[in-house]
C-alpha cells in the first residue's frame, strides 16, 4: 500500500516540524495481530505518533504476543469477562481497544475515564478517547463483560472529562449514522452519507451539542478529505447502499484551529473500516520526532590471528572432508499453484470477506505454514516461537556496558569484601602450583589414562543426533551437522592429538559471550543480562566426551555423594522433593518439628575457584590426559562480548566453570564435594 494515501503523510517534514502530532484511528476487526506481521502494515504504524485501534479482540496480557514495531509501546484495554478468573475463556475475546504510541511520548492512561470498550489517556494536556460502541441491535450478552450500558457509559465519562474543562479528542466507531447533522455550535457538515440518521446517530449529535464537541467528519472549514465512507460492508461489489459513515472524530471546539488536516482514508486491504488520520498542532513543549529508523550498527566480523598450527590444519582438513548435506538438494518445494485474480475474488466473496483480502491472506498463509510444520516438531516449535514470542526490543546497553558487568562477574570476587581467608587462598595457589603439568593417571581410574576410541566418537554422534537441530555455533562456525558429517577416524585423531599435545586449535580458545536479558526484568539495566557463551561446537564435542569419562570414573568410585543427584543420568527430577516430603511425613508422624533451611549460594557456578577445583580433582586421583587438557583449556580460554554488532576487547575468566560447556555441571559438583568424600 502506498503510504501517501494515509492522509497528509507524516513525512520528514512533519516529523521535524515542531508541535505537530499525528493520530491514526482504525477499526481492524480483530486482525491487529496478523496485520502486525506484515511489513507494509508496520510501515503505516511507524509513520504516525499515536495509533488508536478498535476491535482488537485481545484478552488481558495478550498484547505481549504481538509484534509491536521497535520504538513503539502498546496499551491494551480489553474486555474483562466476569468469569475470567475461575474459568478462562478458551476463545478469542471480542471488542477491545488499544493504543500504540512512540516510546518517548509521555502518555498516561486515565483509568477512571476508561470503560467497557473505550479507553482514555492524556497527552500534552489533551484527553484522547478511543472508543468502540457495540451495535445497538447486537445479539450478544453485554452483561457478561459490562455491568453498565457501554454507550451510556461512554457519554457519562465524556461528560465527566469535560467537567474539568479539558480539551478532548474522541475517535469512536459509534455504529451510528448521523448523515450531515451537526451540533448547533459546531461547523456545518456535508457528509457523503445521505441515509436517514439512526437513533444513536441523533444521540451522538446531541452529546456533541451538550459537550460542545465538533464532529470533524465532513465538517466545513476543516482541512483535509473527510466526507467519505468509513465502513464498507460490501466492498467487493462497490455497492454504496452497504457503505456508511460510522467512525467519527470529535474534538473540542477550542481545538479546531489547531487541526492541520483530518482525512478519512477510504477503503484499504486491511479492514472493512477506513482509517481516520488527524494531524494537529499540539501544545507539547517538546514535540516527539518520528526518526524511528535507528541505523543498525555495522557488524564487525571477528578475525582470528593466523591459524597455522598442526591442530589448526587438522581442523581445516576435517571441515573440508566432511560431507555436509547440501541444503535443498533433496526437498525442492513446489511453487504454490497460481490462483487467478477472478478465482481469488470468488473465494473471498464466498467467505463474505468484504475486501479484507490482505488480512485474510496473511491468516491463510500462517495457517498453511502451521499445518505444514506440524509434522516436524523442531520446525513447528521454531515457527510457533517466532509467531508468539516477538523479539524483545534491546535496551540501550552497549557491549562496553556488558563488559563492565560481565568481567567482574566472571572473575574472583574481592577477597576482602567476600571474607575469604587470604592465607587459605594462598595455600590453594601453592598447592595447585605444585601439580605437575603432565600428570599420570591413578591406578584407581585406569580409564582416564586411555585415549578416545572410535566407540567414543560413535557415542558422541549418537548423542548429537538426539539433540535439536537449531544449535548456535561459536566463532569458528563449526556446527553439529559438521560433526555428524565428519569422518569418525579423522575426528578421533584430532581429539587425541589435542590430548597428547595438551594443546587446542586456535579457534577453540576464544568464546563468544552474548548478553540475554532475564525474563520479566527491565532490559535497560545491564545487571539484568545473563551471560550466554557460544563455544566452538568441536570443543563442546570434546568436553562432552571428557565429561563422560569423568562421570564413569566418579560413579564407579562412588566419589559423588548420593545427595548430589542433580546431574546424574537416569535420576528423576522429583527425587529430592520426594525425599523432603518423606522427611516431613516422618517428623509429623513422630510429633516432631522439622526445621528446614533453603540456602542460596551466590553465583555458585560463575565463582568457582579454579585452584580449589584442580586441587580437588588432583586429590581425588582423577588425573591423566583429561585432567591436564582441562587445566590447559581453563588457563588459555579467553572471551569476547558481542552485542548489537559490537565486539568488546578480549578478556580472561579466572573464576567459575566454562559457561555453556557440557563438562561444567560436573566441575560444579566437584566443588561441592564434602570434606569426607574420600
Amino acid at each position, binding site marked *: 500500500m502506498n503510504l501517501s494515501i494515509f492522509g497528509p503523510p507524516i513525512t520528514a517534514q512533519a516529523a521535524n516540524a515542531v508541535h505537530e502530532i499525528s493520530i491514526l484511528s482504525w477499526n481492524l476487526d480483530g486482525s491487529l495481530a496478523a496485520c502486525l506481521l506484515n511489513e507494509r502494515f508496520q510501515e503505516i504504524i511507524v509513520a504516525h505518533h499515536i495509533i488508536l485501534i478498535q476491535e482488537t479482540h485481545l484478552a488481558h496480557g495478550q498484547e505481549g504476543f504481538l509484534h509491536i514495531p521497535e520504538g513503539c509501546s502498546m496499551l491494551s484495554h480489553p474486555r474483562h469477562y466476569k468469569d475470567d478468573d475461575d474459568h478462562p475463556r478458551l476463545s478469542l475475546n471480542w471488542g477491545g481497544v488499544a493504543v500504540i504510541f512512540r516510546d518517548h511520548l509521555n502518555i498516561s492512561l486515565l483509568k477512571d475515564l476508561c470503560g467497557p470498550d473505550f479507553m482514555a489517556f492524556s497527552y500534552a494536556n489533551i484527553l484522547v478517547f478511543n472508543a468502540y460502541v457495540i451495535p445497538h441491535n447486537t445479539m450478544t450478552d453485554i452483561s457478561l463483560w459490562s455491568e453498565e450500558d457501554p454507550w451510556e457509559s461512554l457519554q457519562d465519562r465524556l461528560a465527566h472529562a469535560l467537567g474539568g474543562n479539558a480539551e478532548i479528542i474522541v475517535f469512536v466507531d459509534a455504529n451510528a449514522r448521523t448523515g450531515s447533522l451537526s451540533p448547533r455550535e459546531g461547523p456545518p457538515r456535508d457528509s457523503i452519507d445521505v441515509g436517514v440518521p439512526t437513533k444513536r446517530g441523533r444521540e451522538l449529535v446531541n452529546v456533541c451539542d451538550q459537550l460542545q464537541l465538533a464532529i470533524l467528519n465532513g465538517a466545513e472549514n476543516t482541512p483535509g478529505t473527510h466526507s467519505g465512507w468509513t465502513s464498507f460492508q460490501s466492498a467487493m461489489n462497490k455497492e454504496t447502499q452497504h457503505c456508511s459513515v460510522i467512525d467519527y472524530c470529535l474534538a473540542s471546539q477550542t481545538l479546531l484551529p489547531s487541526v492541520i488536516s483530518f482525512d478519512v482514508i477510504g477503503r484499504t486491504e486491511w479492514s472493512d473500516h477506513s482509517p481516520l488520520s488527524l494531524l494537529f498542532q499540539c501544545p507539547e513543549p517538546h514535540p516527539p520526532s518520528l526518526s524511528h529508523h535507528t541505523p543498525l550498527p555495522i557488524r564487525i566480523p571477528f578475525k582470528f590471528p593466523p591459524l597455522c598450527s598442526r591442530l589448526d590444519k587438522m581442523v581445516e582438513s576435517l571441515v573440508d572432508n566432511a560431507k555436509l548435506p547440501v541444503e535443498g538438494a533433496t526437498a525442492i518445494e513446489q511453487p504454490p499453484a497460481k490462483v487467478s485474480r477472478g478465482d481469488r475474488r470468488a473465494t473471498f466473496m464466498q467467505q463474505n470477506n468484504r475486501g479484507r483480502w490482505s488480512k485474510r491472506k496473511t491468516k491463510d498463509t500462517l495457517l498453511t505454514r502451521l*499445518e505444514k510444520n506440524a509434522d516436524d516438531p523442531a520446525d513447528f516449535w521454531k515457527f510457533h516461537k517466532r509467531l508468539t514470542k516477538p523479539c524483545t526490543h534491546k535496551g540501550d546497553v552497549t557491549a562496553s556496558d556488558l563488559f563492565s558487568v560481565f568481567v567482574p562477574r566472571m572473575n574472583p570476587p574481592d577477597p576482602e569484601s567476600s571474607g575469604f581467608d587470604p592465607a587459605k587462598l594462598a595455600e590453594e595457589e601453592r598447592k595447585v602450583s605444585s601439580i605437575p603439568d603432565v600428570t599420570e593417571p591413578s591406578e584407581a581410574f585406569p580409564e582416564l589414562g586411555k585415549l578416545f576410541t572410535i566407540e567414543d566418537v560413535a557415542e558422541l554422534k549418537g548423542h548429537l543426533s538426539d539433540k535439536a537441530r537449531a544449535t548456535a555455533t561459536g566463532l569458528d562456525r563449526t556446527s553439529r551437522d559438521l560433526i555428524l558429517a565428519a569422518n569418525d577416524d579423522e575426528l578421533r585423531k584430532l581429539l587425541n592429538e589435542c590430548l597428547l599435545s595438551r594443546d587446542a586449535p586456535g579457534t577453540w580458545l576464544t568464546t563468544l559471550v552474548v548478553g540475554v536479558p532475564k525474563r520479566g526484568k527491565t532490559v535497560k539495566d545491564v545487571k539484568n543480562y545473563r551471560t550466554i557463551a557460544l563455544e566452538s561446537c568441536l570443543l563442546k564435542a570434546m568436553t562432552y566426551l571428557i565429561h563422560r569419562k569423568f562421570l564413569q570414573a566418579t560413579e564407579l568410585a562412588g566419589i559423588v555423594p548420593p545427595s548430589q543427584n542433580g546431574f546424574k543420568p537416569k535420576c528423576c527430577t522429583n527425587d529430592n522433593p520426594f525425599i523432603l516430603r518423606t522427611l516431613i511425613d516422618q517428623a509429623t508422624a513422630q510429633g516432631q518439628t522439622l526445621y528446614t533451611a533453603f540456602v542460596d549460594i551466590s553465583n555458585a557456578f560463575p565463582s568457582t575457584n579454579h585452584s580449589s577445583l584442580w586441587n580437588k580433582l588432583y586429590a581425588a586421583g582423577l588425573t591423566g590426559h583429561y585432567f591436564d587438557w582441562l587445566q590447559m583449556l581453563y588457563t588459555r580460554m579467553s572471551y569476547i562480548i558481542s552485542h548489537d554488532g559490537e565486539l568488546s576487547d578480549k578478556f580472561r575468566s579466572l573464576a567459575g566453570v566454562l559457561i555453556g560447556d557440557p563438562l561444567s555441571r560436573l566441575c560444579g559438583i566437584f566443588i561441592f564435594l564434602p570434606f569426607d568424600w574420600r
Partner: protein
Amino acid sequence: MVIISTSPEGLQRHLDTLFAWCQNNFLILNAAKSWVMIFGPIPPSLNPFSINSQSIPFTDTFKYVRVTFQSTAKDYFTTHYAEKISAARRNVGVLFCLELYVGRNRIPPQVTRTLYCALVDCHLIHAADIAPDISAQLLMKHSDLQKRCLQKILLVSKHSVIAPLYTESGIMPMAPRHVLLALRYLLYLIHLPNKNYSFMALQQSENLRNADSPSWLTDLDFAL
C-alpha cells in the same frame, strides 16, 4: 540446597558448618536469599536463624526443585496445586492466542493437541508422581480445565458428551493419569539401589504406612 534438622540448635549448627565450609571453598552464602521453613508445631520462643550473623527470613511457602511446599497447610502441596492450575490457565491463553494470527476456531486439532500437551498438560501433571491426589476438590479443578481444553481442541460445544473427548484426542483423563504417573514412579523407586536416598525414603514411607501414619504410600492408596 536444603538443610534439615529436628531441633533449632541443630539447624543453626548445620548452617554454621556450611558457612565455614563455603568460606574454605571460596563460595558466598546469601542469607537474604535463603529461607527457613518450619513444619509441625512451632515452639513458643524461637531465635532467628542466621548465616554469618545475618538473619535468615522465615517463610511458609517455598519452591524446592519446582515443587512448592507449604508449611501452614495440612496438605503441604495445596499451594503447588494452586500454582500449577494458575500456570496451566496462563498457558491456555498462550495456546489459543494463536487464533489471533490464524483466525477464530481455525487451528487444526492436531496442532492444538500438540500445543496442549506441551504447554498445559505438563502443568496439570506436574509432581503428580510425588503428590498423589488426596483432595477431590483440587483434582476437579485440573479435570475441569482439561475437559474444557479438549472441547476447544476438538471444536465441540462445552455441553458435549465427555467420554469421546478422551477417545478422540487420545489424552487420558486426569485422575487415572495422575495415579499412573505415581505408580510409574513407584516402579522406578523399587529398582533403585539400596543406598539411594530415594529408595531409603520409599522404605521410610512404607514404615509410616505400616504404622498407620500419613505418607506418600498412604496417599497413593487413597488415590487408587
